[in-house]
């Protein structure tokens, strides 16, 4: 099978317009006869569901939380990018496109990335109209801040709660359509499998998390908007319930999985402090605007941070990357931190952190300005650690944060299964091998609000006069039986270890071998280890309670079973890619001074994996760079 | 248009409460006459109460007052019933003292004690003077009903003195919370204003409670 990304003709600037003028339309009266399932109520899911409903489609929307407002988009702090050029600092759609492509180390599609930048400005208009209280100047205009990896100020924000404010706007808009009876919302419902009829996505099987009942839902198209899968590392900045199950099940039913190993490790999270820890809290990257990162120049320095004089501090990012300094992109900042920590310069009780210091910023701008900019982040830091960061530097550490990889989608955001779409973080589309800060709220929103509602019609137009399948179709029955068997199998094991035990084991292997830096031997070892974890899980896990009741332990077990398989694929993908690009750093491919070596002539493609009865088959979507010349990504 | 009971009922309680707060100021100012030396106090106090009884305008106000008390109580009751229904099960452990004042948590109970006080208070004075129930009320030198004597006699019973003074504590608590709460219920939300309001409520409640609370003792020791 050759992958066709369906990139429209024309100049970059014209492609999206050309696409829209040529795609098929559906008469408003007919749209209400068409049913769409949207799994996920984050920015991408809620945005898509609300907009599709506004257009007239009949929408069913799902989330596993008790309310749509809790999707993990809510946790994004820093901001959302848009090429508005309000700061008059030379920004443009083209520059934003180029920054994103370069930030992703030239491993994403030009056309998609350009469209992302192009639609960013109208998105800010949209959210402003929806009542998002973005930060403003005294005169009333919108403010911007800068973010890692770029030299212009294009990030819009709502205090330290940008994701929350955007999500609440999307959630409210979703509820507006619920009120108008255009959206049926199923909270506390988890999608456990995808149903295909004649090779087309026609519905899902979901578990009602309160009653435990398995339910069938049929539609003319299915949209997955289920977010990131970094919980495969167990410790991450994601919510505890974030999972890869929906996309994994879709993958097993035939959707290709693209670049699964491209995972962003965020440089500024709070360090792990104990084995029992369940979550690593992110401290917004925006802190790097004013904070300076350093470690002591001497290993195992026993002194308190404030006792270490200036000349004995190593501001290693400023030293290694003079032009970007503390604003170097995430992958670079994380790797640099790991390098210092591994070399013995780490600080904190477990020596697993580096300092992020606001002393100079406070001296320069005054404590009030810093309070105004980051007050809630400093408060949060204090709540968690008990430390006052106005007086002593924060301790930060890298943590798994974002999945650039995800289901392979074409320009229309359709996966390799006809009628199955993937939007938001769960697809692989615009970020290449590394995502720039504040670009993914953007991507999730643009996918949901602007792109999908303009591409899905191209597919649904053909579905219009076909007979619609109902949940009585044998395919539904069969998938439901399979899901039930899967659940019963887990409950029947009654072994001796908890789900969390296996998750910790998986997390350790993934973090050790498939995170910030990777090598062949390690990845091969990891694959063997994960296979062992899988075997142990299926023979020795213990889950109490039943399937026909609210059972949080069972929910965890089902998610973990999928994470384990996904882990194998991630390592397989990392092993296959013998180059270093973006967040994917293969130790065998580096310069003598530790910078990444990208191998464009062999690896300028998107890996897309096909599930093949427990094995994975590689397909390649070659990336054509028609409009820009991939350059060596340097932030020196 | 349909009115929202959540707002309507509370607004009624608040508005009647504020009216009663105003009344208390007038009531206390009049009672201050009791603090004067015996002779002057008797004459002026009796004259004043006669004037009150005979002024037609005051009569209207008096009815408004009775009505306010009744409406305040009835609506507070309705509010309490709904509130109880809204929280049918209470917590096994609940440290309300950590997040709110005792008075704010117990306005119903406090209100009930004040209601009992009012009933007894009315029986002591209003029933005798206006309805002519119980022992006859005499007249003073100027021919006015000798209300002063009624007061004087009552407050020479130490149990009544204690009752009248001690019950001013719940009244103070009720007024302190009630006054600021009433303004907020009626939509006063100015930030600085609310801080001033909190202080005024405290002063008001303290003055009213202390004022009414001291008088029985002053009379007792006359």
């Amino acid at each position, binding site marked *: 099978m050759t992958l066709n990304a369906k990139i429209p003709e024309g100049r970059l600037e014209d492609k999206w317009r050309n696409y829209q003028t040529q795609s098929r339309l559906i008469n408003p009266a007919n749209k209400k006869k068409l049913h769409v399932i949207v799994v996920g109520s984050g920015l991408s899911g809620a945005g898509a569901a609300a907009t599709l409903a506004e257009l007239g489609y009949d929408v069913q929307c799902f989330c596993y939380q008790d309310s749509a407002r809790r999707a993990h988009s809510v946790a994004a702090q820093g901001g959302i990018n848009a090429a508005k050029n309000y700061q008059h600092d030379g920004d443009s759609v083209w520059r934003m496109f180029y920054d994103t492509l370069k930030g992703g180390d030239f491993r994403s599609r030009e056309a998609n990335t350009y469209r992302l930048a192009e639609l960013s400005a109208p998105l800010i208009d949209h959210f402003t109209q929806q009542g998002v209280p973005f930060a403003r100047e005294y005169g009333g205009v919108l403010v911007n801040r800068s973010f890692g990896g770029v030299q212009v100020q294009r990030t819009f924000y709502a205090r330290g709660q940008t994701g929350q404010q955007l999500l609440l706007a999307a959630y409210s808009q979703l509820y507006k359509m619920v009120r108008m009876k255009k959206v049926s919302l199923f909270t506390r419902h988890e999608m456990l499998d995808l149903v295909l009829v004649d090779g087309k996505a026609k519905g899902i099987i979901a578990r009602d998390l309160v009653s435990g009942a398995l339910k069938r839902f049929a539609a003319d198209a299915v949209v997955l908007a289920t977010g990131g899968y970094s919980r495969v590392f167990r410790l991450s900045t994601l919510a505890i319930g974030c999972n890869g199950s929906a996309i994994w099940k879709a993958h097993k039913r035939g959707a290709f999985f693209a670049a699964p190993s491209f995972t962003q490790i965020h440089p500024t999270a709070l360090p792990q402090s104990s084995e029992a820890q369940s979550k690593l809290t992110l401290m917004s990257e925006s802190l790097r605007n004013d904070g300076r990162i350093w470690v002591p120049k001497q290993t195992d320095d026993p002194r308190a941070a404030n006792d270490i004089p200036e000349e004995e501090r190593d501001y290693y990012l400023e030293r290694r990357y003079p032009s970007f300094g503390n604003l170097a992109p995430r992958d670079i900042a994380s790797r640099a931190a790991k390098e210092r920590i591994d070399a013995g310069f780490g600080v904190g009780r477990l020596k697993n952190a580096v300092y992020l210091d606001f002393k100079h910023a406070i001296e320069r701008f005054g404590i009030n300005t810093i309070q105004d900019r980051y007050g809630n982040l400093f408060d949060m830091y204090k709540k968690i650690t008990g430390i006052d960061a106005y007086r002593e530097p924060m301790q930060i550490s890298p943590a798994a944060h974002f999945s650039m990889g995800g289901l392979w989608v074409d320009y229309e955001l359709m996966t390799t299964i006809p009628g199955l779409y993937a939007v938001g973080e769960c697809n692989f589309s615009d970020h290449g091998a590394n995502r720039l800060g504040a670009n993914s709220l953007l991507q999730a929103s643009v996918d949901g609000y602007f792109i999908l509602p303009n591409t899905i019609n191209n597919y649904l137009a053909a579905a219009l006069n076909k007979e619609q399948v109902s949940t009585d179709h044998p395919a539904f029955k069969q998938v439901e039986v399979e899901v039930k068997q899967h659940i019963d199998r887990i409950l029947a094991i009654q072994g001796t270890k908890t789900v969390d*035990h296996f998750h910790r084991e998986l997390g350790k292997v993934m973090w050790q071998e498939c995170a910030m830096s990777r090598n062949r031997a390690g990845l091969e070892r990891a694959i063997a280890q994960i296979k062992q974890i899988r075997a142990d899980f299926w023979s020795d896990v213990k889950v109490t309670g039943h399937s026909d009741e609210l059972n949080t332990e069972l929910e965890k077990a089902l998610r973990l079973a999928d994470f384990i398989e996904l882990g194998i694929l991630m390592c397989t993908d990392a092993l296959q890619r013998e180059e270093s690009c973006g967040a994917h750093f293969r130790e065998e491919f580096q310069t003598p001074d530790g910078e990444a070596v990208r191998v464009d002539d062999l690896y300028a493609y998107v890996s897309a994996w096909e599930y093949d009865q427990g094995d994975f088959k590689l397909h390649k979507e070659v990336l054509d760079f028609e409009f820009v010349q991939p350059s060596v990504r340097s932030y020196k | 248009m349909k009115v929202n009971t959540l707002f309507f009922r509370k607004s009624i309680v608040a508005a009647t409460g504020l009216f009663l707060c105003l009344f208390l100021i007038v009531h206390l100012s009049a009672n201050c006459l009791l603090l004067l030396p015996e002779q002057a106090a008797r004459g002026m106090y009796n004259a004043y109460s006669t004037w009150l009884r005979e002024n037609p305008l005051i009569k209207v106000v008096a009815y408004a007052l009775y009505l306010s008390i009744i409406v305040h109580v009835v609506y507070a009751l309705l509010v309490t019933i*709904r509130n109880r229904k809204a929280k049918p099960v209470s917590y096994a452990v609940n440290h309300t003292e950590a997040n709110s004042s005792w008075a704010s948590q117990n306005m119903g109970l406090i209100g009930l004690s004040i209601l009992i006080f009012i009933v007894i208070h009315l029986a002591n004075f209003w029933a005798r003077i206006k309805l002519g129930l119980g022992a006859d009320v005499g007249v003073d030198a100027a021919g006015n009903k000798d209300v002063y004597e009624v007061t004087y006699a009552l407050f020479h019973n130490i149990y009544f003195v204690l009752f009248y003074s001690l019950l001013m504590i719940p009244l103070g608590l009720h007024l302190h919370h009630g006054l600021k709460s009433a303004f907020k219920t009626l939509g006063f939300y100015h930030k600085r204003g609310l801080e001033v309001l909190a202080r005024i409520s405290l002063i008001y409640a303290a003055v009213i409670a202390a004022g009414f609370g001291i008088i029985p003792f002053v009379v007792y020791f006359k």
Partner: protein
Amino acid sequence: MKVTFKIWRQDKPQAKGAFKEYQVDELTEDMSFLEALDHLNERLVLRGEKVIAYEYDCREGICGQCGVFINGRAHGPHPNITTCQLHMRSFKDGDTIVVEPWRANAFPIVKDLIVDRSAFDRIIEQGAYISAKTGTAPEANAILIGKAIADRAMDAAACIGCGACVATCKNSSAALFTAAKINHLNSLPQGKPEAHQRVLDMTAQMEREGFGHCSFTGACEVECPAGISIANIAEMNARQGKAQLLG
């Protein structure tokens, strides 16, 4: 460290619940409160018992999904935090920690410590939005909004919808939650056209859901993880009055 948890267990909405005691050791002060419960749950699984059901998702104080009554306080002993932000260092070795679900008629118990807060969503449904369709927005800077107004809107918009206000309120009033949303939208120019209807509809739903009256005990603003000021309720009352008269 070692503590005794006294936890409300209730299998189903209609079932009769009761407190059950659990001794837990091997805890450390760095553990979060929820991690201590996780730890307990792992022991329960190994003993073949059903796990305690409680809610959480983000575990960083923003999603609003967590929330239980801990030792007589919503979200535990500290003001303005969520349950997931509470750490075991706030307790002493040997403490008994009483854990109860949110109690309110409008928040029926689903299981153990989990309650159903969908009443909040239904209040939102009644108008916590600006009814403009995707794709119809004017240029963002075309409408200027002064910093003071934007900041105030943001203060109100910070609500995470956890329900601590209802839980701690002796009347189970949802006034703080509803007021925060109303004030956020109604104070912005974008929210003006539908301002009156929004207040009337959202508060009507608040009434239908069976929440109590606000009597300004002020407990809600102390327990609110987002620090929403109770002045918001007074402001909502003003808007309500105006809407009743003009709307």
